[in-house]
């Protein structure tokens, strides 16, 4: 009898949490590997339109971004609400595109220079005028492979 009583007083053994750090570390490594830090701070408001025929960008290292949209709220006092082009971290004009393209090309290996995709991240409410100007400018500097950044959707609606 006394044997049983002894057992009872011990109660249920605690669940071992020794493996918890391992599990957490596994998750941690997963996120460390998959993470990509945002390189630029957006100064323009960009809500990309939705489309059904989107393709995934294959090589992230071969993509350069051009942002077009109206300045974000906190910058509207200084820069107004007219849509602007943002290259890297600064506002730019279409004349700066030439230099930007050259700099981006310089960053890559020589063999890969013609494979750069220029991803246009344009706000959906922007008028085509500024986009067309950028496109014409890109043609002039022979940066022809472009991507109209848009989100995947199943159906477009009017």
């Amino acid at each position, binding site marked *: 009898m006394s044997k049983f009583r002894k057992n009872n007083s011990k109660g249920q053994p605690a669940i071992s949490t020794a493996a918890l750090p391992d599990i*957490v*570390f596994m998750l941690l490594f997963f996120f460390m590997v998959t993470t990509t830090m945002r390189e630029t701070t957006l100064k323009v408001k960009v809500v990309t339109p939705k489309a059904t*025929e*989107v393709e995934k960008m294959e090589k992230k290292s071969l993509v350069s971004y051009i942002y077009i949209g109206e300045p974000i709220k906190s910058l509207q006092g200084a820069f107004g609400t007219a849509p602007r082009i943002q290259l890297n971290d600064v506002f730019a004009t279409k004349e700066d595109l030439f230099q930007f393209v050259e700099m981006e090309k310089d960053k890559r290996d020589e063999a890969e220079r013609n494979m750069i995709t220029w991803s246009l991240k344009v706000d959906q409410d*922007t008028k085509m005028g500024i*986009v067309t100007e950028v496109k014409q400018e890109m043609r002039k500097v022979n940066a022809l*492979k472009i991507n109209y950044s848009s989100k995947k959707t199943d159906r477009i609606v009017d």
Partner: protein
Amino acid sequence: MAKREISEINAGSMADIAFLLLIFFLVTTTMDTDTGLLRRLPPPPEDINELEKIDIKQRNIFEVLVNANDQLLAKGEYIQVTELKEKVKEFIKGDPSNPEMPEYKDEEVPIFGTIPVSKQIVSLQNDNGTTYQMYIKVQNELIAAYREVRNERALKEFGKSYDELVKLSETSETIKNQADAIKAIYPQRISEAEPKAIGGAK
């Protein structure tokens, strides 16, 4: 306490540290891979006068106009975006007996040999005042039309859709040829005319 052992380092807080790091990476991570419509711009014209020389018969062109109010005019008809795809598909497929539809030209195509291929061109012209959203919608419909026509043809000829053929083209030479054949029969010709500013919007 005669026997003094070296006490183990308490690893209990390891989980906490790991959690802290985990949460940091969870917050900073951006998993979004960029997606979008891939297009190729035409190379810059070498000679401005050359632009005038290109002369294409009206019946070979499917003209899509978008004005500053985001209204759509396809081959002279005022339509909605949702109707555009069917119209373009009809045009790409063509009809040899219809004089309104594009002409055919004999071309070398893998697998099929020399067969008549439609001389279709889709021309898209937008105004400076068109919204980007509308422009993407129209582009999207045009690409979708081409894709669906190709899919239908591939399904009829090879029992697989064009998308599948492209996906499997790495695995075998025949499938790659099949995909190339379909692509050659319906080449994607979306031309963008030089923009105009009629709507007055800037």
